[in-house]
């Protein structure tokens, strides 16, 4: 039996969903464990929202097995929905509904104290505000409050920071971090990779309805972007000598120079060898900098590849995407 640490809250196997003859989710497997913040990431159109809508029972899958908190999302919708807290992408509240009234409307017998939650998310002063008068950040925080109101066992957040300015985004992030630290199980859907990197313990990257790769953000970065970029200014003579000495160092892949500057790309270990070489020469530059890739630079190309319609039900399909996936999952790009 599963132990409590890795108890499956959501299990999806072989999920397929099409709209008309267009396959949008194509054999997707997904697990969300109790107490984790799982990021479902991918470019717009990857099929993320469709996937979570199947998990919420808002859409009926064409095939595949879904278990959410022990329920079949479509058949057991009435039993499941009170256990979910959902913030939907592209869903508003009535313009003239006030914050306090929204709490009243959605609160069941099990609900938290609405004012406590409003206070926690900085909305207590806005209790009388109509939905239409709220800023984007306030609205999203209200949706978070509503998602948490009835003590859900799983919180689903779909593009929570869409359309927010940077300050509002940070506010909302802080709110999600509170959830994470409280041990709430969260499925966070986002196309913004910096958001996933900040908030998620584990991410599942999808493209064209399939899983490309998954794991903790740091693992994905080292898998897909294992390099480091070292830069410094070099105005002394003998730059060619320097380049010749750097090139054979362990882990160094590319050494490039523009007038007055040197750039070295290599493995993370190569940082130490390059540093040692500079120390040995007694010429450590003032402006030495090292850039390590973040999740965005690691996965951007992977996720943003053109969203070619996936041909369905032929071996052609596997032949087309299979090797690509392999190459990308390997250590080097």
């Amino acid at each position, binding site marked *: 039996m599963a132990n409590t640490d890795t108890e499956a809250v959501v299990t999806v196997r072989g999920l397929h969903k099409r709209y008309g003859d267009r396959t949008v989710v194509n054999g997707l497997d997904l697990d969300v464990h109790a107490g984790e913040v799982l990021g479902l990431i991918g470019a717009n159109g990857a099929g993320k929202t469709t996937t979570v809508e199947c998990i919420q029972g808002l859409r009926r899958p064409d095939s595949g097995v879904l278990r959410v908190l022990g329920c079949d999302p479509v058949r057991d919708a009435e039993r499941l929905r009170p256990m979910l807290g959902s913030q939907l992408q592209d869903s508003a509240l009535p313009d003239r509904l006030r914050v306090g*009234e929204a709490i009243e409307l959605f609160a069941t017998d099990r609900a938290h104290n609405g004012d406590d939650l409003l206070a926690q998310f900085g909305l207590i002063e806005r209790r009388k505000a109509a939905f239409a008068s709220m800023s984007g950040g306030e609205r999203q925080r209200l949706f978070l409050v509503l998602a948490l109101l009835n003590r859900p066992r799983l919180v689903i957040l779909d593009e929570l920071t869409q359309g927010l300015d940077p300050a509002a985004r940070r506010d909302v992030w802080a709110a999600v971090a509170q959830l994470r630290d409280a041990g709430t199980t969260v499925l966070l859907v986002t196309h913004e990779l910096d958001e996933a990197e900040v908030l998620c313990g584990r991410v599942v990257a999808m493209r064209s309805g399939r899983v490309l790769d998954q794991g903790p953000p740091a693992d994905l970065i080292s898998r897909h972007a294992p390099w480091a970029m070292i830069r410094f200014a070099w105005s002394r003579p003998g730059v060619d000598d320097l380049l010749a000495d750097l090139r054979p160092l362990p882990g160094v892949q590319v050494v490039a120079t523009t007038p007055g500057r040197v750039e070295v790309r290599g493995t993370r270990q190569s940082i130490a060898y390059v540093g040692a070489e500079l120390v040995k020469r007694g010429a450590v530059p003032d402006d030495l900098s090292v850039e390590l890739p973040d999740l965005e630079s690691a996965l951007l190309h992977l996720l943003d590849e053109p969203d070619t319609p996936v041909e369905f039900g032929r071996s052609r399909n596997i032949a087309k995407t299979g090797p690509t996936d392999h190459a990308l999952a390997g250590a080097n790009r």
Partner: protein
Amino acid sequence: MSALSTSTATRLIRTEFRLTFRDPLVLTFVLVFPIVTMLIIGGSFGTTPDPSFEGVNPSHWYVASYLTVVVAATGLVMMPVHLASYRERGVLRRFAVAGFPRWSFAIAQLVIGIVTIVVAGVLLLLVAAPVYGIPAVHDVWRVVAGLTLGAIGFVSIGVLLGTLLPSARAAQAVGLLLFFPSFLLGAGGPPPQVMGSALRAVSDFLPLTWVTTSIRQPWLGIGTPTGTLVEVAALAVVATVVAVRRSAL
């Protein structure tokens, strides 16, 4: 129906009630428009009994006709726009994912539609009373039956239109297109006696005319149109069944 779901319906009704009476479209179109037009038209033909008005006081004729203007404004304009805008903006999905059963929303709409009609109708009569007087009701039960069945029928038509029309704008356009001919030919316009035969034929065909006739005739004591009342009952049953089926998952 568990206790949870029942209280869901109560919470929805309370919220929808508040929102309805904050909605400028409802305030202007359902509450004010019928009153203003009744005051204008009701005062246009004097108060002397007139053969064009089946031998009754024209002002009273209009007072007895205007409750259905409220019914039409609610069913053809307010409800479709309200529902279509909820769907367009994802409010319905939010209700669904929050675990509100579909029927609780349908019940809430039915209740709100009926309550709106009652409130707007009472207001209309309160304004009419000092100005034109309220004509004596000859056959209370027939009037109540016609009004109740007509209200249920038009509220269901409203729900149906709201589920069919893709956006609030579309609902408003279609709603107004249905409302004005119904209003002019079936309730608040010229009496059937003065219409040409073509207009008269169109008027006889309009559901709102059936509702108006089934209320006005027994109210003013100028007829007991049982056939029309049956038509209104059939309308109510058919519209409600179709609306319930459409809005079921």
